């Protein structure tokens, strides 16, 4: 059993609007283990993304605590959280969020240089990673709106992992991609996981969830079920899908 890299204690997240309060996460205790590919699933409005952003320090909990290792990050200021994020976390978003006014290469470098000093090694590393995810050299000087959605997401993944984060968070990374591009992107996640990268991913797509080895099912702000699988590629895919489908059926998916 791998050790917990993240865990929460009675995590609550409440949104207020016009005097109306909505409790999205309720007294949640959850643990994210090192080197796991944790998939968070649930129906719309179950609090998946809210949990992801609370775990990653993108947002502060309303109540309760989030521990990164032994360190409580729930009390950090916004700027302290930013420093925490750049040192420990990588993010891949459904909307990709590349910087439109920067080239592909600079998008990755912007993420890298906030942590690392510029060097020939860093530039080489960026080049290697871009090549590895299939972004050819002629695309490096292109702007995001000159690339396809799949290419953009691959650039987004390189930007997320360039600083070798302890955890990679992904929010519906294939949500805006076509089938072929989705597979390419998921293959990259699988490869990263196989090399020991801890990943937390939110999805409502079974095909995507199959890439993980642990599925947490959220309902009404609470984890109502947990399902473990072997690493992707080490078992029979049909059996794997059936097992997960069975779990989701039980959860009322």
């Amino acid at each position: 059993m791998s050790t917990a890299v993240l865990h929460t204690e009675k995590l609550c997240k409440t949104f207020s609007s016009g005097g109306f309060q909505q409790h999205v996460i309720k007294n949640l205790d959850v643990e994210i283990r090192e080197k796991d590919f944790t998939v968070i699933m649930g129906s719309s409005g179950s609090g998946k993304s809210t949990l992801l952003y609370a775990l990653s320090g993108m947002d502060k909990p309303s109540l309760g605590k989030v521990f990164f290792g032994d360190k409580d990050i729930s009390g950090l200021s916004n700027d302290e959280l930013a420093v925490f994020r750049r040192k420990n976390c990588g993010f891949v978003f459904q909307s990709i969020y590349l910087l439109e006014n920067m080239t592909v290469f600079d998008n990755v470098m912007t993420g890298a240089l906030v942590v690392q000093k510029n060097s020939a090694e860093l530039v080489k590393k960026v080049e290697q990673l871009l090549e590895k995810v299939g972004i050819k050299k002629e695309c490096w000087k292109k702007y995001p709106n000159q690339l396809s959605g799949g290419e953009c997401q691959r650039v987004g993944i390189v930007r997320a992992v360039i600083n070798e984060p302890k955890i990679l968070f992904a929010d519906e990374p294939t949500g805006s991609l076509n089938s072929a591009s989705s597979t390419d992107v998921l293959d990259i996640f699988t490869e990263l996981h196989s090399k020991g990268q801890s990943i937390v991913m939110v999805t409502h797509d079974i095909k995507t969830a199959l890439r993980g080895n642990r599925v947490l099912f959220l309902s009404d702000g609470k984890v109502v079920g947990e399902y473990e699988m072997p690493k992707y590629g080490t078992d029979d895919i049909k059996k794997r899908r059936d097992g997960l489908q069975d779990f989701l059926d039980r959860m009322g998916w």
Partner: protein
Amino acid sequence: MNKIVRLSWANIKKHKLETIALVILIAMCMLLISSSLEGINGVKTIFPNMMKNTESFENYLLLEERAYDKEYENILSSDERVEKTATSELLYSISTNYLDEKGKEQALYMGFITKDNEEKLEHSDIETTLSDAEIAELRHPIYMPFAAKESLNYKVGDNFEMVFGTKKYSFTIAGFYDTVILDSTGEGLKNIVSDEDYHVLESVLSKYVVLAYNDHHGKTGLKFLDEKLDEFENYSNLDVKSGIRGWVYESIKETVGSTDYLLKIMIAMAAIIIVSVIIMIRFRIAGDIRDQVVNIGVLEALGYTSKNITFSYVLEYLIIAAVGIIIGTGGCFLMTPLFFRICEIMSGHRMYGSIYIMPIILTAAGILLFIAIIAYIRANTVKKYPPVVAFRKGMGDHCFGKERLPLRDTKSSVHLRLAMKGFLKNFRQNIGLTVCITISAFAIVFSFIMFNFFSGGMNAIDVSAGMEMSDLRIELMNPTDAKEFAAELEQMPEVRKATPTSGLNTMINLTDCNELMFPMAFSDFKVTENIFTLDGRFPEHDNEIMITNMCSRSEKIYVGDSVTLEYLNVKRKYIVTGIVTCLTNGGINLYITEEGMKRLIPSYSPDTIELYLKDGIDAEEFRYELTQKYGRSISDISDDDNAEGTYEERIKAEAERQIADMMANYGVSHVEYAIQSGDKVISGNSSGFLIKSIMNIGDIMDTQLSGLATAIEIMTTLFMVLSAVVVMIILFMLMESSIRRQRKELGIMKGMGYTSKELMFQLAFRIMPAALFSVIFGTIIGVAAISLITGFIGNISINIPAVIVMDIVLLLFCFGCAYFGARKIKKISVYELMTE
């Protein structure tokens, strides 16, 4: 129409802060233009109101009693060009001092006149807080011109102490009044005193006859006056011109009206700020349309025509302008009295001007029209955005800019690199920003140099005075040999240098402009310390002179020109060898060698000594010491009461009385006496009667220039603050719109781990290249502008280190404003961005 109003209102509500900033800028424009116009309007009223309220004569001649003949008035009145004449008398001296609030003696030319004599010339209302009964109880009441109140800060009931020689004369201020002559600290003050006090002063001050005449509002001018002076001299065979002071209608009008030059500078500065505001408004409208291009597409898709949208923008900015105009008008009503006050301080006269509506209406209409035109031109570009193009953020097709400053080449901080990328990306916007900051920097640097110069006290104007700024100016008794006495003074341990020169009692006519000038005569100008040439060189030969820059500009006389000087009908030609900056004596100084003076006035010999003291010597104490040793006068002697002294003291006192009388009235230059009294010899000499008066030059300059300096300090401070506020608002607006435009981008970067402070730094640092260029360029044109006006105001010395410090402060201010303006980045939540 409803549709358009709704759209405009929605836009205003959406950009509250930027709207407020724009309202402030427009309000400032309105305030500055309308207040300046009101000020200039007000200045124009000073002279006619002054003439009306004082019922004054239009022209005045001040003649020494010795040069006066009763027939002069008949000569004047018999001329058909003259309407009305009057003769009066007053006591006048340029050697008088007064005690300031700290009890220190300050030089101030003064005239004293009785109420009856004053009423022969003018009929001013007295401004007082005292009742008639209270005034009647005053032992030595004095009514002083308004300048005493405005420039010297006296109040009714204050004690005013006049000092002449070693004697003090104490008065109580009973009120203030408006007067046409001797109405400022520069010209001197004409004070109304009781008959008794007038008689006391009569024994010590010189009596002058005042000849006043009206000539149909200045129909005759200086030439007429010159003609009449010739007629006076021909009639009486007296030297009339040498001791004369004259004021003609046009020169009085010009002097009083010249106050508006400060307001003109102010309008120029206001115009500068306005240009900056206008550029910002233009960019704001253009930026707004660019930012809202997608919304424009949506509105068009919903059926709004581009005309509807254009007019909604025009209406939006007209509403903003209207609010700014209303606020600015309110400010104008508050600010105009302040301008009037400055003009009162400067002119020494009451301003009876009231606020006129027409300049306000014209300014408001101008601003509204301008904003409507700019808004229409910019908003009309909406036409270029049919819905599909608008949805693509205005891009007709995909076009991609050249990659600038790729991050792979980053050498230092990534934040600096990203800031520079941002600067290059927004290059066009930065051009506008550069223009705005350059203009404001120019206004700030210009104002700062002026402020620094005028707040620097006497040291600052040493180079611009156009006369020697020695510690003491000693006017000698008539027969005293100035060169010998200067040599004697130089032997004193306290004295650094003593230079003989000419006094201010003789005036020479520069016939080319028919202007009486004060000659500054030195045997060798190389010994002077405060006379600097703007152009040319010092006069060296007896046919060479220098003139002031003011004279050169007004009369178009330049180096190399030949001019004619006239004194007592003797005319001589001289060559102008140099031009000198001159802030003193109204710019009517003339620089001539001793030999040059002798060529015109053969009997000329120096009668004044410029005395320079060694460091650490108190000028006031030394003045007292000199007065005691050499400066006894017949008035001192006549007041001395030694009736109760010893026999020997009474003998000495009588001997001194005789010596004083001989020296003052019979041209005796030296007396030695010895009186045998029993077996005792009582002896003495005339060495105690060498000095007529001693002036503390620093004090004279302080008194003459304090009003000007105060007004300039107020104005320049105002401009520095206004320009800084403009820079601040512009940067706030810029940051506000940048953050709004780049909200998503900034959110992504926050998500990547960039802290709010780092992003604020990046955003603020983006403007720094523009700010740096602007501050440098603004400083250069500010310094150039100072050099340009040097001819008018004086050799304004520029304190380079202070200007550099000012520039650094300005740069830090720009950065600080931008950084503070970017603080809204803190409010951008990554989470909200991701989930919106």
